[in-house]
């Protein structure tokens, strides 16, 4: 019985740890998806509305998913206060406003986007946004792959742990 209880406790702790890891990976995928949605809005509004970034931030805040929306809301506040875009962008990234679960490589892609955003004509901006989108899509595909692998691993661990518990119980 003691062995069974110990095994169950170890199993629960592992499940908790894996659950947290799984949650973080899932949220990273969602945050990257939010940024891709924000990029899509940026691309369409720049091309068809020619809105300046101050107003564009408002559109993204209203339409993009949570993490990206909050980032652009804070960026809009900074721009309204007269901050320079590249500087405000970098400060927000450093403060983790782009998303709590993004990794360093995600931040690097966003940092490059912020360095060039708004600083050139429409053709160059389209190129920059397309490049950023490609990078973020690649990162998201990789994050989804990792998440899927973790899911499979957890499923396998779940089955084997269940079997172990049954064996111990018998």
């Amino acid at each position, binding site marked *: 019985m003691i062995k069974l209880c110990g095994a169950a406790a170890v199993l629960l702790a592992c499940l908790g740890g894996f659950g947290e890891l799984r949650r973080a990976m899932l949220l990273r995928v969602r945050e990257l998806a939010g940024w891709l949605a924000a990029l899509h809005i940026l691309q369409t509004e720049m091309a068809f509305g020619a809105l300046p970034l*101050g107003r564009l931030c408002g559109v993204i805040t209203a339409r993009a998913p949570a993490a990206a929306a909050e980032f652009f809301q804070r960026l809009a506040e900074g*721009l309204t206060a*007269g901050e*320079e875009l590249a500087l405000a962008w970098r400060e927000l990234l450093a403060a983790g406003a782009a998303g709590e679960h993004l990794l360093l490589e995600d931040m690097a892609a966003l940092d490059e986007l912020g360095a060039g*955003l*708004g600083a*050139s004509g429409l053709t160059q*901006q389209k190129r920059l946004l397309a490049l950023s989108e490609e990078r973020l899509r690649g990162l998201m595909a990789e994050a989804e792959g990792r998440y899927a692998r973790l899911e499979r691993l957890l499923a396998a661990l779940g089955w084997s742990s269940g079997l172990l518990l049954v064996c111990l119980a018998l």
Partner: protein
Amino acid sequence: MPDDLPESLLRALLPELAEAVANAAAPGLQEIRLRVGQPVRLRQAAGEAALPLLWSKSRQDRQLMRLLDNSVYAYEEQLKQGFITLPGGHRVGLVGEAWYDEGRFGGLRDICSLNVRVARQVLGAAAPFLPWVVQKGRVLRSLFAAPPGVGKTTLLRDLVRQLSEGSAGLPPLNIGVADERMELGAVVNGEPQLDLGGRTDIISACNKARAVEILLRSMGPQLVVTDEIGSAEDAAALLGALNAGVGVLASAHAASYAELLARPHLGELAAGFFERVIFLARRGGAIVPAAVYDGRGERLL
């Protein structure tokens, strides 16, 4: 800080420049000249003044991004024209290195000089001109001429405002403004920054010929107004307005009637199309008619 220094202008400047301008500007600030490697210079009613602020390339770049709302792409067409219009109606002229895309002018880069022109609406500026422009219950086709800086745009703006609200015994008129250089109404994000009256429709940043055509076709104006005419297309557009039975007010650069007549297209318009050609002058800070000619070239004032 002078009382007539617009807050909207200071907001558009870098903090260090805004502070220097607010401290040093005298009443009647007209221009702020920002040239890389030179001190900032102000042109004001009392003359030119240099500020103790050396204008570096880094400042120029930061200032430009601030003027452009950090959004170069949104101002591409204006940048190609060499100016941008700011909230408050202030206008920034810029020059730098031209670049070409497959042989076509693509715009300007490495901007080295900015000229910030302060917009001021002078309410009532048109009062001395109304008796010359409005006669027998109608607005005569009139051309206002003067060298740059005398106040042609300021005058046209106030004429439009007054005629749009009803003035000189006329009922309020529907007026169409072809504002190619975005100086008359200074529309920013669809909102005129300067008062052109309640019955005025403004088409901005569009060449005058196309703008007049659109106005005539879509807005049914009683009067068409445009600034700084001079080309054959401008002349054709104004003739189009005449054929539509619509009145015309316009302005042009010229210091004298002889100079006006010598200019291609303008000379023909002055001699046959316009019923009044009015030369402007500044006296004691006010814009006044210096010389007035009728459609046959006879001097009335």
